[in-house]
């Protein structure tokens, strides 16, 4: 770490954790419109400009791969005046390592990257900073993500989101894929971050510097893109129908539209509702607010 007297940390000093999607399958699908080098040519200047905004600003980049994640850049460890381009070497190494972990020669179906892993790493880093003393830069997480959501990571990602919410770390999302991400939408909504899906990727730098460059203190004075509203209504596990009221397994929180004898998710056996009154009270409202 640069030896700067900690008292200089004001509320406009940022620690920006950037998670970049390095899923090769995602970048292969978009290579005709927006290549990975295009992407980097927008992101690297953005990282440099963050570092220029405040001498004490810190940028950490985590690569979200297909098989693994890793830190590829930390401005506090870099030599003075070294620019973000220095991450390219580490990025190359990371991609090679990520490939070595691959077990199949080809991929069929949905291929999502390890967002839960990189979110957890970012949060761990932030926790370390929090514990370094009472004075530290204000952390936030920016996900530059394009791969589709991985349903299998649901529990891990939601846990990360709630953990970020608990430590009041906003998760900003900039979706560069063609489809929206339900994960990131929730992440930004729950943690009070900004969710954005740029319409024109060739202007990505403009989006990044307009929406995501301002520190948390400045945000209170700015009008940033707001969510139109997230529909958190759940659908039942049994028919995938959207429901307002239903039964919730008290063990695993699975949702069902009608009474079952046994939970299909965790196998818990439900007690028989004895009377109509009892079954009415068993019926819990699924709250739509977080």
């Amino acid at each position, binding site marked *: 770490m640069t030896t700067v007297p900690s008292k200089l940390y004001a509320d406009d000093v940022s620690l920006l954790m950037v998670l970049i999607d390095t899923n090769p399958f995602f970048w292969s699908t978009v290579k005709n419109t927006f290549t990975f080098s295009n992407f980097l*040519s927008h992101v690297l200047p953005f990282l440099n400009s963050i570092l220029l905004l405040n001498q004490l600003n810190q940028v950490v980049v985590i690569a979200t791969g297909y098989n693994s994640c890793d830190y590829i850049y930390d401005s506090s460890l870099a030599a003075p005046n070294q620019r973000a381009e220095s991450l390219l070497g580490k990025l*190359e190494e990371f991609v090679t390592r990520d490939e070595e972990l691959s077990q199949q020669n080809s991929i069929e179906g*949905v291929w999502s990257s390890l967002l839960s892993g990189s979110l957890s790493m970012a949060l761990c880093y932030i926790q370390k900073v929090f514990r370094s003393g009472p004075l530290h830069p204000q952390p936030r997480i920016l996900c530059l993500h394009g791969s589709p959501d991985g349903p299998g990571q649901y529990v891990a990602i939601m846990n990360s989101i709630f953990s970020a919410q608990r430590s009041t770390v906003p998760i900003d999302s900039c979706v560069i894929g063609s489809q929206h991400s339900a994960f990131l939408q929730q992440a930004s909504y729950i943690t009070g971050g900004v969710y954005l899906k740029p319409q024109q990727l060739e202007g*990505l730098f*403009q989006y990044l510097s307009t929406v995501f460059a301002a520190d948390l203190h400045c945000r209170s004075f700015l009008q940033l893109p707001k969510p139109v*509203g997230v529909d958190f209504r759940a659908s039942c596990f049994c028919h995938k129908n959207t429901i307002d009221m239903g039964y919730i397994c008290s063990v695993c929180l699975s*949702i069902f539209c009608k009474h079952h004898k046994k939970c299909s998710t965790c196998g818990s056996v439900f007690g028989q509702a004895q009377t109509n009154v009892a079954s009415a009270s068993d019926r819990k409202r699924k709250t739509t*607010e977080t």
Partner: protein
Amino acid sequence: MTDGQVIKRARYKSSVKDFGVPGVLKMTRERFFFMPNDPKSSARLNVEFRLVKGHKFTKEGSNKQALLNLTVDQGGNYIFEFDTFSDRDACREYVATAIAVSGEAGRAGSERSAAPLQDEQLSHAEMERRIRLLQEDSELQKLHKQLVIGGVLSEAEFWATRKKLLDENASRKSKQQVGLRNDMFHVKPSSDGQSNKVTFNLTPEIIHQIFAEKPAVRQAFLNFVPSKMTEKEFWTKYSRAEYLHSTKNVVVAAAEAAEDDELAVFLKQDDMAASEARRKIRRVDPTLDMEADEGDDYTHLPDHGLSCDGSKDVTDSPYELYRRSLLQELNRHAAVVLEGRAIDVELGDTRSVAEALARSKQDDLTDEVSDGNINQERLDRISRMAEIDDLQAPRDLAVAPLCIKDPRDYFDSQQANAIKSLGDTLAGAKQMKCSLSTAEAYGSLRDYISEIKTSGLNDSIVKPEVALKVLNGLTQSISSTKYHLGKNPHESVLDRLPYVAKQELLHHWMSIQELLKHFWSSYPITTTHLFTKVSRLKDAMSQIYPKLQEIKESVQSDFRHQVSLLVQPMLQALDAAFAHYDADIQKRSAKSGERPNGFV
């Protein structure tokens, strides 16, 4: 309670020390009179109980006066001394009821509502508790103000449905039982300085404490009194022993004990207390090494290491029996005080106190398992407490591990809606599925990286016209979201209402709930009180009805529909109550109407 009158001989005193004017005290329901024996005396009294605020009295005791002190509103007081405590108590009880009755009458006069549910006699503490509850909860206070002060419900009715609230608060400060005194040397011999007589003062309280601290004395009392000696003789002997102890003259004590077997019981060390102590030691945590820290304190030194009287501290084995250490007494005393009042017996009767204490000790003993079991239990405890966690096999927990068959279900349950709200469809996702070779994909990714590595960053990152387009697009979408906000289905309708309207709606909803609760709980109507209560409640509810209509009309037209949706259930609940009320009234009038019709 007697409702006639009470007449007792008493002396009217201007102060506690004053001898007082002898005469007769007469109490009737409304007032009390004092007539001095000397007709010429001016100390005549005729006072209404209405003016009496409270009464104080002396505790019953051998050397105490039987006093009754009546305090009046203006700050004065009347002190009477009675010949006996029973006379005093008769008057005291009469006064207590009289004050309560007259106080209630006074209040009832000032209150308009004639509630047959008689207002409870509220203690000051109870009143304060209610006030505190109201202060803590502004919603409750609002309701109370509206319904009780507004005359719809009586104070008692209002709180009757909140008994739990009061109870919970009450249980917080449980009635405290008075413990034992913690000073040790209350049995101090006092000498008048002239004769050689030494006096000990024993009260039932002190006797209780002696019995509790010295089981041998207690046992002796049960053994000797009254078969061998009277209670007085017993205590004289005990006092003699205490006196000998206080002189610390072990030799004399031993000599006297040799001559008097009964006295010896008091002088010797208390075997029962000692065995009780040994039993307690066995229950101490076995991993606690008491010998290890023996050096840290002075327990191994007699009298706590303080040399009280060095010359007599030579340990002479024949006299050792008669020596008592200060520390032992102190510990014993502390243990008894901390144990608290174990028995619940009137302290007056010495024998029953002794028996009750003996019984409670016996219970303790039977609770304990036999010695053999104790040893086994000690061993078990040692092995349990000396357990080293990492050397133990993992314990089987009584909980089943959570096993989730497929966590993807959670995602599917939410994703569909979330994506829908952004205007996406899952069809887009399906399109992206395609077959790719791993090596190819990674290879091209690496190519892109080396491409930028060699070419470096572009001179202009973004083309100006693209940047402008982005800025315009962002500005437009930000300014348009303002208008979209209203369409957010997850915002509560209430939040968009003007603050006043929202508060009013919430308050009406609360009042309606409260009124309906009282309304429905009044059925079936069995008394005229319930009848008037129900009609009062109905009136109050019908006053809210138009107010709801007003709110509906006062809000902007965009909200009117939403508000009417909110108000609808309230109106329905009220309508149901009104319908029931009307039907009940009709039934009643039909019933009462039948008879006159039949007669006419």
